[in-house]
């Protein structure tokens, strides 16, 4: 159309029975019934589509590529169909987009304040989606390659998540697999958590950012990407019995906290993982050889403000940290200790008062890592199980 207007009045039917599309300029106002049916083709409406009544997608796909609005209207998307938004679109609180089909937001800004409950794959591939209403996404697949802001009241608990960037206050619970492929996760989830049971962290070389939120791992984190993870007032919690496995070269930086009550493992690749640049603290449960293993390479904690480790045990591997391989490490008592281990060969340098009871090194097969407390007011005891790491006392 060129400046045309289509008005589908109350009680009227506008039915597309194939994949035909409307392009150009003008607008489409639907007060009646708009239906896409019969064939599996996909139709695109590239002029603004304003729905005040009912959109009935029965087969194939329907994309409002010209944007528009859903004003107290209903859009039904059954299984096997895909409803798309490709330009700026608003949906008010009285509207609904529901069904067993798929949702794709590919461009513009989609401001969806009503009910959005599509049981198929939800994909935010471009533009931004502001989900401020009752957005429900459970036991399905959620892909976020654009930006999605979850600020509504619904439950976001998909089985599989692949994301690059999202934000919002809603808790996000991942039932099966979460793929974080890259980009900036700048969610402002100050009072919410992110739960997942299996987490594939495979972002490319640029940074990811966690902002003001908690990533709570009750499953497995497998970090295979080459990029870094920036924490900005964020917390990563590794629950007991779980495994967090950063591989290759990794950097966890900025401010935030890593609480490890499970296993934090560095393995497979020979690269160095760095916990760097003022990560506020690293709190961990009593470490055992099963709970803190870094294999075949180094893990550096640099410029830490505090590294906490509850102590009290007397059996090796249960009451104090064990350092495996050519690692520099830390240990403290009562959760108040601090340690700033420098790079290998430079020694372990305590940056402030510490209450270290014991440092236990095991299989230290490379250069000596002397302990050089700078501001240590309490005794520090080092114990070594194997040769190659001579004991030091300060």
């Amino acid at each position, binding site marked *: 159309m060129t*400046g045309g207007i*289509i008005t589908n009045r109350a*009680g*009227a*039917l506008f039915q*597309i029975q194939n994949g*035909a599309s409307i*392009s150009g300029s003008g607008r489409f106002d639907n007060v009646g019934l708009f239906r896409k049916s019969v064939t599996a083709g996909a139709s695109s409406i590239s002029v603004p589509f304003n729905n005040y009544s009912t959109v009935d997608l029965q087969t194939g796909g329907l994309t409002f590529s010209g944007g528009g609005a859903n004003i107290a209207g209903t859009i039904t998307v059954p299984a096997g169909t895909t409803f798309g938004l490709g330009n700026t679109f608003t949906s008010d609180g009285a509207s609904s987009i529901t069904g067993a089909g798929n949702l794709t937001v590919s461009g513009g800004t989609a401001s969806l304040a009503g009910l959005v409950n599509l049981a198929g794959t939800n994909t935010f591939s471009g533009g931004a989606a502001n989900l401020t209403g009752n957005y429900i996404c459970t036991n399905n697949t959620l892909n976020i390659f654009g930006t999605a802001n979850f600020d509504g009241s619904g439950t976001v608990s998909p089985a599989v998540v692949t994301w690059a960037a999202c934000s919002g206050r809603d808790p996000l619970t991942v039932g099966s697999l979460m793929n974080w492929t890259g980009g900036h996760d700048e969610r402002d989830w100050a009072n919410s958590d992110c739960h997942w049971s299996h987490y594939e962290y495979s972002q490319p070389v640029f940074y990811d950012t966690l902002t003001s939120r908690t990533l709570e791992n009750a499953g497995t984190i497998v970090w295979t990407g080459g990029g870094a993870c920036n924490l900005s007032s964020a917390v990563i919690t590794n629950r007991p019995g779980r495994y967090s496995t950063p591989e290759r070269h990794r950097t966890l930086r900025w401010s935030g906290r890593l609480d490890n009550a499970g296993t934090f493992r560095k393995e497979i690749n020979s690269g160095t993982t760095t916990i760097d640049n003022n990560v506020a603290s690293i709190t961990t449960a009593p470490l055992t050889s099963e709970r803190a293993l870094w294999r075949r390479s180094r893990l550096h904690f640099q410029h830490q403000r505090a590294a906490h480790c509850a102590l009290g045990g007397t059996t090796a591997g249960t009451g104090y940290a064990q350092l495996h391989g050519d690692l520099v490490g830390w240990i403290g008592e009562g959760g108040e200790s601090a340690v700033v281990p420098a790079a290998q060969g430079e020694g372990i340098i305590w940056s402030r008062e510490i209450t270290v009871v014991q440092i236990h090194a095991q299989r230290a097969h490379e250069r000596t890592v002397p302990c050089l407390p700078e501001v240590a007011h309490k005794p520090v005891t080092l114990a070594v199980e194997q040769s190659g790491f001579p004991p030091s006392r300060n």
Partner: protein
Amino acid sequence: MTGGTVNLNTDIAVQDLDFNTTLNGTGTLTVSNVMNWFAGGSINGNGLNSLVIPAGATLNLVNSGTVFFTSRTLDNGGTVSWSGAGGMQ
């Protein structure tokens, strides 16, 4: 209407219409029963007038190719059934 150009500068109503031409002008066209719109048909207006499909009437878009709709309102109170594969520009 097949081929050529029709300039409609007054409001008219017809019962049935097979349409494959170019329609211009300021008048409103009302089809009270069935209109079949074929590929290549072009309906143009002045931005104020309409093509009216009232309640009980049907517009069949049976266009194998593109149809054109410019500066006019398609006012549907009945049924638009679009079975053609062509688009609308």
